[in-house]
């Protein structure tokens, strides 16, 4: 599985494995207080407080709002174009631009566009997914991250990062294990 590399690279970061979710939150908080910025928590389910500890902001609501607005105007515009301009159909002299009748399908296109944006952009693309591999998958016990263990990774491109010192710092947080993550 190993690919030959031209130059030796440093580690991706250092990981600490915890048995309890509260330990993870405390560790992330402690790391932030110690000045670390480039880090991430990995857990089997969303942990309240984990992302606050890293100061992350989500752009999902804005993106979904834009998706919904686009869907609304696209739907209403398209229906109006077909019913009024491209294929006007006189039914008993009733007005061609009978906009109240266009509202139900416009509503559906609004939901469709917003929902697809939420799923495809919000839950997947904004997270950089799909992705075939990531260095954290190289952590020996990382399959537990989707089951019952909690991981804090301090990444090597953090300005404060120094392999030995960061390992020492993480060991002080009562983890089960601290190891370097291969690149």
């Amino acid at each position: 599985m190993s690919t030959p590399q031209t130059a030796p690279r440093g580690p991706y970061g250092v990981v600490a494995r915890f048995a309890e979710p509260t330990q993870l939150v405390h560790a992330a908080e402690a790391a932030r207080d110690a000045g670390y910025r480039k880090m991430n928590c990995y857990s089997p389910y969303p942990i309240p407080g984990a992302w606050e500890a890293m100061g992350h902001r989500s752009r999902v609501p804005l993106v979904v709002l834009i998706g919904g607005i686009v869907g609304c105007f696209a739907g209403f515009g398209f229906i109006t174009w077909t019913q009024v301009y491209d294929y006007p159909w006189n039914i008993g002299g009733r007005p061609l631009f009978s906009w109240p009748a266009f509202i139900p399908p416009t509503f559906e296109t609004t939901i469709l566009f917003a929902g697809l944006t939420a799923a495809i952009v919000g839950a997947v693309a904004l997270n950089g997914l799909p992705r075939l591999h990531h260095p954290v998958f190289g952590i020996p016990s990382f399959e537990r991250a989707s089951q019952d263990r909690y991981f804090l990774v301090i990444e090597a491109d953090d300005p404060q990062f120094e392999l030995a010192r960061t390992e020492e710092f993480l060991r002080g947080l009562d983890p089960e294990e601290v190891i370097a993550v291969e690149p």
Partner: protein
Amino acid sequence: MTTVSDAAGTRPPLGKPDFIGPGETPQSVTDTISGVVYGKTHRWWVFALAGAFGLLSIGFLALTWLLVKGVGIWGINIPVAWGWAIINFVWWIGIGHAGTLISAILLLLRQEWRTSINRFAEAMTLFAVACAGLFPIFHTGRPWLSYWMLPYPNTMQIWPQFRSPLIWDVFAVSTYAIISLVFWYVGLIPDLATMRDKARRLSLKRTFGIFALGWRGAADHWHNYEKAYLLLAGLSTPLVLSVHSVVSLDFAVAQVPGWHATIFPPYFVAGAIYAGFAMVLTLMIPLRHLFGLHAYITQRHLENMGKVMLTTGLIVAYGYACELFMAYYSGNVFERYMMVNRTTGPYWYMYGMLMLCNVAVPQLLWFKRFRTSAFWLFLVSQFVNVGMWLERFVIVVTSLHRDFLVSSWGMYSATKWDWAVFLGTIGLFASLIFIFIRILPALSMTELKMISAEGKSVGEH
């Protein structure tokens, strides 16, 4: 900046003792639920799938014959041109609605008990919508041209009539199918990652891995994910209400006595939820028993579903009363005759059975004894399943068979091919359900893990 402890404390504790069995941990949840998929194939499962597939085959046979001969093999004719195809369409789409209600509306209302049943209910929605979709498509008579309902640039240089509820229906049902699918799939992504990590065979690891899209449970991912999931729930909520409203407008916009009523949208939505919860109970009670999931689908879940059924059942009963009253109060001779005919005409026994199944029997749910008994809930659900089908029969057939002109009255009866197609869709639904519970985690591991761990993490703050 808020401290982590404060941020964690803003959430109310999710876990309540009776929504999950005592002593459940994230690991036990993962093991039990992935164990249903990775464990041995039960003998009953093979027989059940074989039975379901047998029914499905009857459906294939009937639809093949339908394609050869045309829709004339069904009982539909003038004046009752809608018949079982539309009855079954409305019945199935209604059943689907409970899935969205459980997963979306109860999420927004912070009803934590939904957690262990939402995945399954969403799957039920998808499969019910798949069954529903078959009927109008085959009812068109030339299903290979059903794409004509969609707006696409064509050589005929025409566009669909967007003022018609039937086209609204195409948009509502297809949007509903797509959004239900992505909502279900987004909910599955972290669980697929767990399945990937639990897999022992490389082929399974790869298969689950591809569908998990490389999910690794990072905190920023979870944050985006929760936001997206909540927004999908928020979007699904008005969507599900709109779908059955639009379905009811297929009827209500027509002038036929018995259809032309403003009560239809809310009454149809309540009926849909009613039917859907009955179907969730029909499926959940045996499933819980067969896979030993009592720790996750507790007495409390069953009781709450019984309460929702009672409430929506009362709204439906109000709808029936309202129809009777409006027929009387309108002073319209056709409306009045429709109601007399509906209750005492040639199909009076259908109306009588409807009252028994949908109004009388569910009153048992007022009593805690019945609400907390899996057996009784199952029994009442069967009455509701049948009752909701009868309701659509009464609406479609008794309204159409005697409308304005006596010269155009007629009778309707289903043929064996109507039965065969209906049984076929039951087979399709059951086959999909059985395959689903065998190859995918039927309960949301992520959310159950959250509940099982919540007590601990909140307690320490």
